């Protein structure tokens, strides 16, 4: 069974159909990339899968259950986490606290135990801190743990968002342009991180403009254009598809982007 099954998904903004009649399946495990020119509907699709936007029509099945239109906090409880293209870091907290918040649903949320700081809460907090430290270690931010989040450079914030999303122990991780604005070294670090996550059995859906990263890590690529599916397949299949070259890669090459 597919982990995620999208059927005839449509979202209109006024008269504009950002996503129309889109259907695809994401099997469990691996990295699945969604690419397409600007305005192809990638972020709209992401927002619908993560509950930020309600679909106009269509269904989104996660482990067989229709989750279309459920609010983000309910989807988080079901195991869907995401990062944002434009950073949504909690700048009023430390780096570690950002990661702790990512694991919010796994923490002790009883008001009375919090008010009186009872031993059970203290023990749970200690465990959560240790886990958050381990996640920061994994994304290479261990030495920043106690720093205020607003003191981090941009590339580090990108990885912090990934660590925060991982703290929820998601089954499906949605990454919206994790390498945007990152230099080559930072992009390579993200590539290594994504591969290690998949090795641990995570399913990742990636929206990314950096074609080199996409071609390097993807097990499966979906190409969108004007809200519709243009092509789908493994990296080499997509790369050689004439319609894709026409609509997307040709355009990117002309614009001076990273052609594969």
């Amino acid at each position, binding site marked *: 069974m597919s982990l995620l099954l999208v059927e005839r998904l449509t979202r209109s903004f006024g008269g504009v159909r950002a996503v129309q009649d889109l259907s695809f399946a994401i099997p469990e495990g691996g990295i699945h990339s969604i690419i397409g020119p600007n305005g192809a509907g990638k972020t709209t699709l992401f927002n619908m899968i*993560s*509950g*930020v936007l309600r679909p106009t029509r269509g269904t989104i099945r996660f482990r067989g259950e229709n989750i279309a239109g459920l*609010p*983000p*906090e309910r989807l*988080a*409880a079901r195991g869907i*986490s*995401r990062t*944002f293209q434009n950073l*949504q*870091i*909690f*700048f*009023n*907290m430390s780096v570690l*606290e950002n990661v*702790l*918040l*990512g694991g*919010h*649903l796994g*923490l*002790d*949320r009883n*008001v009375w135990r*919090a*008010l*009186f*700081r009872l031993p059970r*809460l203290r023990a749970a*907090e200690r465990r*959560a801190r240790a886990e958050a430290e381990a996640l920061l270690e994994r994304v290479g931010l261990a030495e920043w743990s106690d720093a*205020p989040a607003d003191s981090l450079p941009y590339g580090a914030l990108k990885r912090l968002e990934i660590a*925060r999303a991982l703290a*929820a122990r998601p089954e499906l991780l949605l990454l919206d342009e994790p390498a945007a604005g990152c230099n080559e070294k930072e992009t390579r670090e993200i590539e290594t991180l994504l591969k290690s996550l998949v090795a641990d059995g995570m399913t990742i859906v990636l929206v990314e403009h950096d074609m080199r990263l996409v071609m390097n890590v993807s097990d499966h690529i979906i190409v969108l254009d004007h809200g519709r599916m243009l092509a789908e397949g493994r990296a080499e299949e997509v790369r050689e598809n004439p319609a894709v070259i026409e609509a997307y890669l040709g355009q990117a090459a002309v614009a001076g982007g990273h052609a594969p």
Partner: protein
Amino acid sequence: MRRLLGSHHGGLVLLVLAILLMPLGFPNSFYFDVAINVGIAAIVCIGLNLLIGYAGQISLGHAGFFGIGAYASAILTSTHGWPPLLALLAGILLSGGIAFAVARPILALKGHYLAMATLGLGIIISIVLSQEVALTGGPDGMPVDPLTLFGFEISGTWSWYWLVGGTLVLVTWLALNLVDSPIGRALRAVHSSEIAARVCGVDTTAYKVLVFVVSAVIASLAGSLFAHFSGWLTPDEADFLRSIQFVTMVVLGGMASTFGAIVGAALLTALPQFLTVFQNYEHVMLGLVMVLTMIFMPRGLVPTLALRFFGDRS
């Protein structure tokens, strides 16, 4: 010093020391009066700071909850002969209940709309308190019985000083605990990015309702103490100006700083008592303090000073 302030409850130790040592410098009972009023305002501000400073939700009507607590204590003890502790709890239940009932529709609003809605709520409560003459004595006010706790009557400035001081320490401790818990982090997340908080699994509406109720309950508790302490209660204690005073204290002391709320309450309660010029132009002074704080230290006193002297967050 830095380690003391930075540690989890170092600030709490300083607060206890300040409360214990301050009376040594008090030349007469007027100073105790001021200190007790500072303590009561500080209790309100600690609760209000959870709402405004941490969760980022404005309320221009919290004197309403202060008034509900005060009048619940006044009416139930003086008119109906309830034991004061029971009356205080009834006030808390009533304030918490009203806060819970209005929180969902009100907190769905944002920014100016939220400010207007809470302003309206405060004004409604204040109008009810001054119009229900049979119940509250109207604008002339009503007498309040002294506070008795477990058979002991709290009278005289010393007992009131220790009672309010002890309550302040307790409320501070609870607030510090709450802030440094998964709930406190969720509140700060709501302040910073609601969408990211929701994606992390935070039910933002539930947390806004929770913090609104908590801050209303704390204001109600302070109101009950105030009613018994002053012995005479007028609707002025629940009016718009009082709400603005509380908000100004929080903003001046420093948003998202529990000790900032105490410092703000201390400054704005004590200054009008000692500087008569402040007393005569209270509206103007409050406005001025708010404007100057926003321009010169938008983070507020305590966080700004902490940053300057210790180079880290308080």
